């Protein structure tokens, strides 16, 4: 089964604990992250995203990123990442990860 999380617009330190909680609850399932609303990404949410990515990869589940917003991509780039590095797909079954 595939679960989805819509990322909040501001992913700052205040958002980090909630985001972590969200991931922990959905662990063991395929997950789609909708990043369409994201305006700002802070270091600490990035850590959560990265750790989640590692966890999903280790568990062998899909972690997909959907519809990433401009600011989201820009801020990731500023921090030395591309959206691809936050996604993990076990079987290349759809193209959403290509964004």
């Amino acid at each position, binding site marked *: 089964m595939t679960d989805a999380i819509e990322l909040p617009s*501001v992913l*700052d*330190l205040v958002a*980090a*604990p909630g*985001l*972590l909680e969200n*991931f*922990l609850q959905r*662990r063991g399932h395929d997950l789609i992250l909708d990043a369409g609303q994201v305006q*700002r*990404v*802070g*270091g*600490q949410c*990035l*850590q*959560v995203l*990265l*750790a*989640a990515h*590692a*966890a999903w990869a280790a568990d062998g589940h899909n972690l997909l990123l959907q519809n990433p917003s401009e600011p989201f991509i820009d*801020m990731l*780039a*500023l*921090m*030395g*990442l591309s959206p691809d590095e936050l996604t993990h797909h076990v079987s290349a079954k759809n193209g959403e990860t290509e964004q």
Partner: protein
Amino acid sequence: MEDPLAAIRVTFFQECEEQLSELESGLIAMENGTAESETVNAVFRAVHSMKGGAGIFALDELVRFAHVFETALDKVRSGSLEATPPVVAIFLRAADILADLVRAARDGGAVDQARVADVVKAFDEIEGQKEIPGSHEEEMVADPSEAQDNVWEVTFTPYPALYAKANEAALLLRELNRLGETEIKLDTSLLPELLELDPEGAYLTWLITLKSDCEESDIRELFEFVEDDCRLEIGRSETEGFAPGTVITGDNGFKFEFFPPMEEEIEEETEVKVVEKKKEEAAPKPVEQALVHASAVQAMVTKAETANSVAPTIRVDLDRVDRMIDLVGELVINEAMLSQRVLEAGINRASGVAMALEELEHLTREIQDSVMAIRAQPVRSVFQRMPRLVREVAAMTGKQVRLVTEGEATEVDKTVIERIADPLTHMIRNAIDHGLESTESRIAAGKPAEGTVRLTAVHRSGRIVLEVADDGGGINRSRVRQKAVENGLILPDAQLSDEEIDNLIFLPGFSTAAKVSDISGRGVGMDVVRQSIQALGGRISISSRPGYGSTFTLSLPLTLAVLDGMVVSAHNHTLIIPLGAIMETLKPRAEDVFPLDGDLNMLALRGGYVPVVDVAHCLGYSVQHAEPEQSVALLVEGEGGARAVLLVDAIHGQRQVVIKSLEANYRAVPGIAAATVMGDGRVALIVDVDAVVQNAGAESNAHTAELNNLEISGGAA
């Protein structure tokens, strides 16, 4: 995140104001030759921090100018540029522009680009003089665009505290991006498993390769505000330069690790060494490289030390302080009421209750004083604006002026400080424009070419006394008199003492209009100054000696929350009349009272006539007029020096009262300025003397100055 940022922005501008003050006072110390070695550092730091903060908020114009300024200051700091008077003068102008830029950034608006360009050019010229022809490094400074790009390697590891303080790694990286071409790599090796992740922890390290012609200090500066909250390493990617880089680290203070450079490395360094190169030029013999570095280290250490030596302060919302002042006011009133009740209950003064109450009273007063002290600020903040004003006015008038300030540390309520700035500005303008003679006449009079304006503040018997004194020609009494006659302020044959003539300049409608100038002839006369001082419960006076100059003296209350008042009664109502307005009290004699038509009486007072105001009638307590000879008369002075005699039934004494706003708690009442609560719990109204006097003035249609020369039949309607 919006709100924290906005709050930081507010703090940034507050800090800017402080830095600007620091900058100004430091530069003035340099100008006066009283600068210590630390002064230059302080000045540099001030500009540097403003630049750093401005960078975060992308105030590019401010950053650009601060950078130019800072570069020049750094040269002074390193000894490669001597702070000669002309150089300091440019610095002062630069400080003015910096202040303008800060204010423009804060409040919007534009800054005179021509002035900015002038100063930037002046900086270029300073550099030009110091340039050694043919020196490669120097050329690079003169034209940074030709400078060869360096490749910097920056390792940036935020600590959790960095995020906790609402700083964002991404924003810092973006700033870094602005310096030049960056390549950012993220090191996630320390990231724990999701389950073990602390969402508020910090596990990431960024490795940034920056291609830029900037200097290490430029990079370091971006991280200045977070330097204690992250690990930052800056090095060059090539082996030359500070290969291992410097390390600033530590959560609680400042730690500086320095890798001593190899000798041959120094020779290969380019821009970073420019300052040292210039030092060589200042002292022709070769300077030991190690020594130079030692001094750089020393500078950093000094910086850290001074940063720690500042007395700790906190910023508190003014509202909170005011609320507390308000509550303490209530406490004082309550305490007074309690005392009264105890007294009424017939409890012996020597009893335990009465004694304890007395102690409570002392304590309450002490609390009140301490709370008032929170709002008190040194007048320095106002005084520090004056040097700039003096420079500008001096430049406009072509006069040479020296401003001497004394008593900057004198403390007074914040509101008083805010509200004396304008009157003081005006008085200083006047002192230079009208008070001081032109340079030629000064020399002709055997005075030093440079005029002196002295601004002093002292505490005197519970008030603050400010003086603005010039050593100019003094008040030209015949001209003042003539002007007053021309403007119809006095009758041509009026006999006035010197003091009275001097005081004519405070009258509305008086202006030495023969010489309207850009500076003081702006339609704002001394009457406005007097008015704003009186609105603060203050008084202004002038003394002048022909040929020796004039002195304006302002006397102001230390706080606006309490008032020294005269408790009086009028038709069974208790009223407070501000003590500052009362000039004298007297018992009128029937033969001195002259009725005019209508309800108005005039009182003959030492050869002049003053309108009589029956307070009870004026405030509507009574339709009957009080008999002047049965009443007590208070001679008061209102706005613009208008005088009146207030008739009340009795005087009950003086006391300090806590001012309660009537507008805020009830509504504005004409003739009443505010209210207070008396010891018996009853509200007493504080009389708005200005309004009452004006009322009387309007009725009598008599002009203030004419009063002294009034002919009863003709002078008043």
